[in-house]
């Protein structure tokens, strides 16, 4: 039994239009996504912006309603969870992309971190403060931070506050939505290392959403590549980086800038080859509607969205 299992998840948003603002169409933000992940591992969700990564994450923790499909967490069906099953919900938390806007600027750090505690646990003021101090220590912030406001912290520190809030309820699964995209490399390194440390210390499982494949490669065990609400490829880190099969994955991999200037020529050449292949074989990889086909296994761990062979 997988730790988290997402089966054929669909999240469609209505598009209002016409004179009376009726629903005239749907945005298929997530359109049939399935994956499962193992406890203690990090699962990467990759794709360009608008491909449905955030929506998938939000559907898992119940912030977006699933239009169809099933999400099973640790044996419980948590699809469109009701308030009654709060116990399960507090085991799954989310870290948001932008450390500058995801924290309420008018609240003190104490109130920000204590918010989930107040929602789920009845603690006395003293106990609450003690817990918050423990959390701050865990994320490497000083105890004076407790009375400060978010603007008094740097980007990396704010992201740590976001992490402290997310781990306050001792979650088992954390969905990190581009947690380092807004940060400088040096700060990014700090947050990534730190996420690895607490993963080990607390036995966490991560869904790591990102578009920087360098970071994804560093962090993840398994990866799913999304395009327009669907999966185009799924596999282990090695499957994806060393043996990409779908043309879209190849483009993503080719787009990673190589940190070694000696490889510059090959890199440009590789990218041009991929671009050529993309232009020539686009129709082989996408259906008439421009969407990806269903996934077919090509090895035990590696799945690719390819058409049924005629």
């Amino acid at each position: 039994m997988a730790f988290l299992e997402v089966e054929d998840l669909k999240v469609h948003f209505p598009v209002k239009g016409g004179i009376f603002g009726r629903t005239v169409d749907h945005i298929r933000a997530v359109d049939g996504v399935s994956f499962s992940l193992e406890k203690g591992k990090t699962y990467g969700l990759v794709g360009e912006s608008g491909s449905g990564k955030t929506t998938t994450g939000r559907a898992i923790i119940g912030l977006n309603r699933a239009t169809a499909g099933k999400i099973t967490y640790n044996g419980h069906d948590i699809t469109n969870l009701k308030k009654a099953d709060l116990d399960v919900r507090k085991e799954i938390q989310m870290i948001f992309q932008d450390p500058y806007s995801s924290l309420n600027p008018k609240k003190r750090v104490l109130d920000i971190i204590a918010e989930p505690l107040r929602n789920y646990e009845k603690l006395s003021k003293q106990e609450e403060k003690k817990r918050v101090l423990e959390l701050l220590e865990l994320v490497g912030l000083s105890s004076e931070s407790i009375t400060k406001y978010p603007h008094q912290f740097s980007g990396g520190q704010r992201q740590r506050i976001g992490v402290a809030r997310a781990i306050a309820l001792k979650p088992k699964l954390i969905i990190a939505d581009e947690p380092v995209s807004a940060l400088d490399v040096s700060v990014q390194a700090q947050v990534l290392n730190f996420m690895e440390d607490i993963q080990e210390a607390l036995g966490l499982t991560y869904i790591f959403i990102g578009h920087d494949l360098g970071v994804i490669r560093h962090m993840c065990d398994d990866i799913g590549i999304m395009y327009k609400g669907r999966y185009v490829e799924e596999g282990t880190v090695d499957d994806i980086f060393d043996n990409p099969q779908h043309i879209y994955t190849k483009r993503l991999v080719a787009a990673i800038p190589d940190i070694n200037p000696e490889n510059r020529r090959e890199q440009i050449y590789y990218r041009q080859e991929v671009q050529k292949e993309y232009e020539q074989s686009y129709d082989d990889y996408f259906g008439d509607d421009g969407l990806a086909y269903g996934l077919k296994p090509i090895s035990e761990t590696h799945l690719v969205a390819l058409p049924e062979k005629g």
Partner: protein
Amino acid sequence: MNEKLLEIKNLKTSFRIEDQYYAAVDDVSLTVNENEVLAIVGESGCGKSALAFSLMRLHNRAKIEGDILFKGDDVTNYSAGQVNKLRGNEMSMIFQDPLTALNPLMKIGDQIGEVLLLHKGKFSNLNRKQKAISLLDKVGIARPEHVYEQFPHELSGGMRQRVVIAIAIANDPEVLIADEPTTALDATIQSQILDLLNELKENMNAGIILITHDLGVVAEMADRVAVMYAGQIVEVADVHALFGMPQHPYTRSLLSSVPNAESVDSKLHVIQGIVPSLKNLTREGCRFRSRIPWIDESVHEKSPELHEISPNHFVRCTCYKNFYFPDEKKEDKRHGIS
């Protein structure tokens, strides 16, 4: 040797904060040659944009000292009229955020037309339109006639950045300053924009200043690299030398904090602390010292200067010889040069 296009000499840009001036760019000297990409890297807050804005004279309330020679002419003495003739014409700029860089109420065509009108007044309206459409085509926009009539909000971020580039190259500038041109874009779009810049460089013979905090972008694009920390240049070198034999502790720290194929099983290097704000920056002695506290105080220089340690490779201060990462042994601290 290519012609020197831009010579920056002892440039100092200071902002006034509470009745006192603080330098965000502090004694920077650099040259940009024809047909060359000079990358400027550093964490955010190091003064890269402040430098770029100084070159274009876009600051409205800053004190600027030092010289900026464009083909031998000091532009710091230019009148407003002369500056306007230079901007968008011989020297132009690409900005970081394509979503806000265009006027939301003006047609794309008019925004490109404006920069042509300003410098190529003799064009007829028809000529101008044709030129604008050919520019859109040149930056890889499909259906340029259609896009000419559109407004910015109708285009994606990548398309808008192409429009910003079209504006910048409209008058075949000799110096092109790109301030984090791909930071706000997706990886695939980023690589397309970088390819576009490379292609333009081949055909333009211009000198390009590429500002970025992404070392991958530097490795792919730059001919020479200047590493900037807290308003100062700490290392300048040919791109191969910089990545192959980085010397300054800041350069080395930056490089080792980037996740890459080799880093998968190891921890990334974390640069302790943050870039100090202008007010909190200690200006005496070495500015990077507080972020490598494990290095013994005795090795720091009093006032570190740029030294040429090998031809065209400059490093600020000599104590790079003494630098090591905390997890390295002090004895085997340096590879390569002794």
